[in-house]
């Protein structure tokens, strides 16, 4: 009993983080931002859940995208951005648009970026599925939530 209490106290003392899960899907970036720890977290800024680069972006469109993403990270004090690991070969490999979006994010993201493989998310689901309490209902946002969850301590 007292061991559980100590573990619970230790978990509470883990530093709170703000982790943004970014699901790259062609020109779209679906975003879920979580604040807290894996044990106890909540979604922040749920209204900012999508950024769109457009099919054929020019320099100004990239600049606007960059302003929007950086302002979001600054305003929400995002500590870490977690991106889905882009498959390079085989079926469903990341296309040119995803590649471009990933490059833009890598070049201008104001916080550290972590890449997470879908196998890692599956492994987490096996061990900690019960902790994923705030998962959104829609498919894409659910995947972005899984990514953000991986970024939490």
């Amino acid at each position: 009993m007292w061991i559980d209490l100590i573990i619970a106290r230790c978990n509470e003392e883990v530093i709170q983080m703000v982790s943004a899960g970014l699901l790259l899907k062609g020109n779209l970036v679906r975003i879920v931002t979580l604040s807290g720890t894996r044990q106890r977290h909540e979604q922040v800024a749920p209204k900012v859940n999508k950024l769109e680069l457009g099919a054929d972006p020019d320099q100004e469109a990239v600049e606007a995208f960059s302003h929007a993403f950086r302002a979001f990270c600054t305003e929400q004090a995002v500590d870490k951005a977690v991106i889905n690991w882009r498959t390079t070969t085989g079926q469903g490999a990341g296309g040119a648009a995803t590649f471009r979006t990933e490059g833009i994010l890598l070049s201008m993201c104001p916080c550290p970026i972590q890449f997470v493989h879908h196998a890692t998310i599956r492994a987490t689901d096996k061990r900690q599925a019960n902790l994923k309490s705030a998962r959104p209902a829609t498919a894409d946002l659910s995947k972005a939530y899984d990514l953000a969850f991986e970024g939490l301590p």
Partner: protein
Amino acid sequence: MKMIKATLNSLPPEAQRVLELFPEFQLQHFNDSGANGYVLLGQHQVLKQDVAIKIYFHDIKEVQEEPALLASISHENVLKVLDARRLGDECSFFMTPVANYGDLRKYLNEYNLSLSLAHSLLCQLLSGLAALHAEPNRLVHRDVKPENLLVHDDKLLIADFGSVRRVSEATGKASASKHSILFRPPETFGPEPYFDYSSDTYQAGLIGYLLLGGQLDNNLEGYLNSREKRQLMRLNGDRVEEAMFVDACIGRRVCSGKLLDWDTVPCFVPKRFVTTLRRATTKSGSKYSKVSEFLAELQRFRATMPDWMATAAGWCLDNWNGRDYLVTVHENPVRVMKRKHGNEKWISDNKFGGNSHDEVYAQLSRQIGLP
């Protein structure tokens, strides 16, 4: 030389004192139009850079907030401070780089802005505001208006931090500012006025409206309806009462969302852009609560936004699927000219024609698939 000396002698003593303190500063222009101080424009001979020195007055015990705030924020769209000093107990000054196009009011009066540039400047403004709002700053500007925004090489800089306040962590609010009535958001009127992050986004929305060509007349009495004008006449020339009455009338217009005339925004501005700005400038509660929400909405349609610009010759659309289009404005019937992008010579396109710009624009929009 005599003339320069005479000019220097005519400066206020505070400005003369600054020039004594800064022998490396070469004065080129003096501006005393500000409400609380003076601005000296000139060149820093050591830095080889054009700089502005702002002299301002404050209470004896007042902490010099403005330069300290400016120095604490490092963002490409927030004006930087190069130096700050006290001139006396009630007067201080600070030095910043000069913006080569001056303030946004002057810029809007002198140049026609393309939609793409207007969008970019608005995004930059919001980006700078995000830096103010972010932890640990938690600042609201409270006086975002064209006169307080500078333009330097297509880059927008937020300046004049005299009204900046820190937002309370407990309430998420700061006290309301009573500056610039036309730019005051609805929540600053009424019995419990306040200012929060969404109030800055409201003011940014107003800037967006002006960037798109929307009209906001500085003649306050022009906003009064005929009944209000009659009531104003009955006040018998009492200046203070008149000003309070006009402010109250404008306050009612702001609170009912009737201040802005969206019909003055040209019809070529995409509906999505207008809708986004209307939402930013609506009543408290339904407007964007955070800058990032506003920016996320703005950037979604940027890639498909046509690059229109209102010029002296007409409305010009630049490089839409490899072609430029011109809708003439001074001719009746209105015509459409087109050319291959990059060519100089326009040719008339007889497919389009009509008596109003809106009608011709609608035809063109359908034909070339504008959003």
